[in-house]
């Protein structure tokens, strides 16, 4: 049964905080040089935990480990196999996965700057600091012991100002994690869209939106008693508990290309249609909902940005179905139309009386992500986003959102449109184009923009596991 999350000194605080007040950040990609030295360094390493957030933090550090990283640190194959197939296989190694993620054409792992097959980072260190505070923070971490243990490269970021390189406000919509444990998923309220999501969708070892524990490595013997006992499997120790899968992708944005395309084809209104929000204010193109939405508000900003669904825009006249924010989170409940009584619900379950198009996409609550990305680069040079997402089930959350929602040309009954910002624009095997975009026009047919150029190119990526503090100590003490 739902209970409040109490192990605040075990959970890396990135699960709770995006560190908006810490505008500087960098990510260090590590490869293990010396396993013993690496384990020793990790033993002494202390990531920022939720308990630290009680006072205002001036800096934060986080660590996450990839499957090759666990191997390099000496973790047994049997333990690694307890993690999900997506994590163990990795983001780039399986061509079928690359197709699903849209990592084809210019996005293909063969052309990545990092993260391609054989070049996966073993660990990632995420550093967040106040303005100009990164130098001392990095210097304290990257010491002689560190140099003896790892080789590293750095992904630098640009100072956070709330906007991504194309100019839109970023990170406006996030799921509200039910830390207090008040939520029992799957009830009548979930027939309507809600933004409150169980902890188990983001942290392993807690019940997810099905009320179940996502599988993860459970360990029979833990002589040093480092790990907590699994809540759902007495007698087993939980390596996953308080941990999360961290997705890191380097998305290079062709800012000049985007701006000139938009300028030549309709200006700001086109850009806003592609995104689904106003450029200046960040407000949605869809109309605000009359009824309150669970997990939205009461803060005025949140209401302004997020108190809406697309229910009243079934034709996609205000925000096109292809609009980025509509694809990334269609804001659908378990049944279109929501809670309308038992009879209506039973009929809907059997497929009667629900709008065919509205029902192509259901139950957004199973496909949510906590996003922690930062932009990088400066105008005139290479710019983009170091996309970071946290989730408990890579297949059902990150890969589903990326493949079935953002990347599918058939999303919500469309034919040839991928996400207008992120699409790889590669035709499918049959020749089916994927580079269309149709902008709704007041009082007339949609405007067909023809073939969109590619605006975003994947330059690197990897799946990591961001462990709880005790799990990190267990990993460091193993092998």
């Amino acid at each position, binding site marked *: 049964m739902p209970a409040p999350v109490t192990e605040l000194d075990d959970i890396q605080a990135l699960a709770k905080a995006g560190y908006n007040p810490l505008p500087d950040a960098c990510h260090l990609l590590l490869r293990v040089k010396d396993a013993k030295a690496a384990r020793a360094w990790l033993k002494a390493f202390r990531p920022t935990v939720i308990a630290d957030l009680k006072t205002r933090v001036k800096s934060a550090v986080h660590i996450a480990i990839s499957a090759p990283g666990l191997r390099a640190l000496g973790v047994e194959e049997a333990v690694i196999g307890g993690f999900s*197939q997506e994590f*163990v*296989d990795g983001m780039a190694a*399986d*061509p*079928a996965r690359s*197709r*699903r993620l849209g990592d084809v054409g210019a996005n293909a792992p063969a052309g990545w700057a990092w993260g391609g097959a054989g070049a996966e980072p073993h660990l990632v260190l995420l550093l967040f600091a106040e303005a100009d505070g990164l130098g001392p923070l990095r210097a304290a971490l990257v010491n002689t012991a560190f140099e003896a243990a790892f080789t590293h490269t750095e992904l630098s970021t640009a100072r956070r100002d709330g906007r991504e390189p194309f100019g839109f406000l970023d990170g406006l919509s996030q799921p509200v994690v039910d830390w207090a444990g008040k939520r029992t998923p799957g009830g009548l309220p979930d027939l309507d869209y809600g933004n409150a999501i169980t902890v188990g969708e983001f942290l392993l070892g807690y019940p997810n939106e*099905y009320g*179940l524990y*996502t*599988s993860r490595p459970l360990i029979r013997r833990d002589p040093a008693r480092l790990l907590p006992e699994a809540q759902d499997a007495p007698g087993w120790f939980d390596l996953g508990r308080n941990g999360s899968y961290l997705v890191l992708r380097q998305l290079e944005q062709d800012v000049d290309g985007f701006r000139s395309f938009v300028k030549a084809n309709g200006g700001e209104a086109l850009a806003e249609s592609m995104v689904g929000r106003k450029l200046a204010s960040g407000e949605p193109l869809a109309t605000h909902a009359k009824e309150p939405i669970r997990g939205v508000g009461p803060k005025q900003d949140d209401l302004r940005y997020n108190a809406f669904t697309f229910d009243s825009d079934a*034709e996609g006249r205000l925000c096109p179905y292809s609009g980025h924010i509509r694809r990334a989170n269609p804001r659908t409940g*378990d049944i279109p139309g929501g809670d309308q009584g038992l009879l209506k619900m039973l009929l*809907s*379950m*059997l*497929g009667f009386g*629900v709008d*065919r*198009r509205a*029902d*192509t996409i*259901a*139950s957004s609550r*199973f*496909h949510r992500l906590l996003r922690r990305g930062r932009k990088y680069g400066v105008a005139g040079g290479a710019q983009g986003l170091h996309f970071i997402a946290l989730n408990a089930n890579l*297949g*059902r959350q990150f*890969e*589903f959102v990326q*493949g*079935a929602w953002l990347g*599918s*040309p*058939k999303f919500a*009954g469309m*034919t040839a449109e991928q996400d207008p910002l992120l699409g790889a624009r590669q035709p*499918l*095997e*049959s*020749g*089916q184009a994927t580079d269309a975009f149709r902008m709704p026009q007041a009082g*007339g*047919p*949609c*405007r*067909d923009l023809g073939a969109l150029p590619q605006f975003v190119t994947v330059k690197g990526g990897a799946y990591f596991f961001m462990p709880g503090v005790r799990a990190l100590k267990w990993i460091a003490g193993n092998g």
Partner: protein
Amino acid sequence: MTPQSEFLILARLAPDKVAGLRALLAGMNGRPGLADPKNPLVPFGDFPTLHVARFAVLDDQTLGDLAAFNASFPDAPVYLAFLGDCDGDAEPLLDEMAARCSEGLRRIFSFCDGFNQTTDLRRWMAARSVAASAGYVNTAGRTVIQAREEAVLHQALEAELAQAAAEGVTAPQALHERLSAQVLQNGPALTPEAPTPLGWLLGHVGAFLAGALILLVVAPILLVTAPIWLLVLRRHETRDPEIATPYDRARRRAIAQAEDHDVTNPFTAIGAIKPGLFRLTIVRGVLWLLNFGNSMIYKSGRLARVGTIHFARWVVIDQGRRVLFCSNYDGSLDSYMDDFINKAAFGLNLVFSNGVGYPTTRFLMLGGAQREEQFKTFLRRRQQATDVWYKAYPGLSAYDLYRNAEIRKGLQTPGLSGEALDRWLALI
């Protein structure tokens, strides 16, 4: 309308022939898993009534699960399944295939038991033909030719609409007239709907009446006896072992190499039914009901709430010991499973919970597939590689086909106006 029908040839195969057969089948493909429509063995593209077809070797990896029921099936055959869905009656299509692809089919079937150089191909196939226990057709009456012509129509209208927009024509009425005139003048030609075959119509009405009668008779009996069989059901449900064996990741990865190249994927699976008369009776009853519902109700684009399936079928084989399930669905396997779990878990449970090892259900409909990960594992373990797969209209999703048909209807509706006209234009 032209009704659709299905065929399945199920032929036994000695295990040592599997590798050779798979190599031959692979030669039919343009890329792993996808048939070259012009392949010399069975050039599927030459048969204009064929919607989808596949060859799949069924090599059940989960027979060991029966041990949990103190049962076994040591002589379970390995099969070659050749199946497809077509417009009109399947028999003439198979006659034609056997005649025109005699050499190719003979080479394929020569790997199977009881086939040699002197075998009468057509008669051999007929002897191994197995009827579906339940079938699903996305849209009854939609022919291959219609799907293809309407896709061309959509493209033509799209181009014309863009042209009109460039010329500044935006009035909906004027657009409708212009598009209608354009199609009349320059095509594409649209084959008119064929009259419904009388024999089929009579059979369909007969099936409806017979089904309704059966339901009228059986429903009250089921209702009156509900306390007893619900008790028995609960006894089974609480005692049936759930099998938590993880799926073989390397095997799943290998099968996935044929998936997600285009819009639609094939799914092939085989699994044992829980031993005993009780579960078999439920399977047969549920599949009968499913088939009745699909042929009478779910025949215009959606199976309950799920709109991504083109064709599907469930076949009870091996004298009621196993079920073969085949479908053709849009999207990736994971999103297909998510769609079903979140929209129609009760339906999955009804049909699949009688399979060995299925996640525990309550009252046949609750629980089960809602145990998301266990359900996915159950299906992945039973999935078979689809060695050769053909679809007559690549690139088109089930929703595309539906929308294209709506576009045609609107085009052929004179005097379309108001909201309906706006909606029609938005479809293009």
